[in-house]
């Protein structure tokens, strides 16, 4: 016990018996135990940390009289989120029907720190202001989508868009067999 009673009396030399002086202190240990138990309980159950969120603002619904913004092939870079955490990417545009445009070279990487992030940073260094088109295939996981949006934040990439994956791009992946 935390409280040890001191000797109640030491005065008498075996003389008069005095009434035993009661200590005015009470043993607070059980109360403290209880207090700390409650403290621990509430500390552990409390939900302090609000979850983090990542803001995603999608473009306003298209009206018919507004044309799609065309992007230049020199600026464009496409990242396709494939299955098994693969990130395919190519520079320029993929238009197989237009013979004047060379077929882009598809490469594959992953979402690790030296994967797609390095590619993005290199691209930004070579030619500034790229526009990134993010295309998620059906096999892509939601985690990949969050990861790639996160990479945009990390690499300070301002211009990017989440778009549907066209069939041409799927063919490109199939042909390349990466």
């Amino acid at each position: 016990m935390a409280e040890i009673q001191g000797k109640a009396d030491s005065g008498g030399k075996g003389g008069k018996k005095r009434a035993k002086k009661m200590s005015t202190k009470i043993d607070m240990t059980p109360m403290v135990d209880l207090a700390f138990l409650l403290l621990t309980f509430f500390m552990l159950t409390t939900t302090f940390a609000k979850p983090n969120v990542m803001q995603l603002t999608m473009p306003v619904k298209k009206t018919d009289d507004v044309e799609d913004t065309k992007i230049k092939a020199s600026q464009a870079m496409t990242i396709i989120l494939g299955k098994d955490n693969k990130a395919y990417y190519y520079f320029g545009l993929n238009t197989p029907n237009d013979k004047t445009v060379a077929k882009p070279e598809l490469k594959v990487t992953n979402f690790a720190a030296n994967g797609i992030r390095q590619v993005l940073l290199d691209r930004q260094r070579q030619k500034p202001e790229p526009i990134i088109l993010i295309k998620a295939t059906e096999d892509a996981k939601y985690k990949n989508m969050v990861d790639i949006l996160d990479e945009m934040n990390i690499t300070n990439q301002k211009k990017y868009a989440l778009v549907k994956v066209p069939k041409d791009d799927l063919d490109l992946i199939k042909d390349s067999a990466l």
Partner: protein
Amino acid sequence: MPKVKPHRTSPSLDMTPMVDLAFLLVTFFMLTTKFAPEETVVVDTPSSTSELKLPENNVITLTVDAKKRVFFGVDAPQTKIQALQKVGAKYGVNFTAAQAKEFSNLPNFGLPISQLGSYLNMAKEDRKQVNAQQPGVPLDSLNNQLIDWVLAARTANQAIFHKPTYIAIKGDGNADVPTVQQVIKVLQEKDINRFNLITDMENKPVAAAK
């Protein structure tokens, strides 16, 4: 010369300040604590470096789990009750006051409105067993109840609290992108273009953050 006696101190120490502090903290935690509601579905959110926090109030949470199910939830109980009545009226399903009360205690649900009544009649323990089999709120183009819930919750929240709502999407890391994109598309059709993707925290990489 008298010997200098060491002053005999009592081994007991005064615990009062410590107890004061302990009780202060207990009171603080008791008052600030907000018990985390029992989730209908457990999702493991992916992590991001974003430092934004989810707002405290006026949040509509759309949970997407790995089995392509979508769950709907809104924080304020009053909003829940009003939304329930509104959506119920639209689909011709009536709810009793007791069912509405039960509904206001649910954190979220993933059922078509036709099954909601019988789910609310169940005892709490029985619900737990059903939770794993909840089919999710329907959101395809033929039977789009999700958008009705979102719109009803938005208008109810606006009417009660006069504040706009935030749409939070809480997706499992293994959820597939088409389901999430379907949710986004459904909401975009009603001109809801701002989303908050709930993520875990992750430290910013040192090298790339310039």
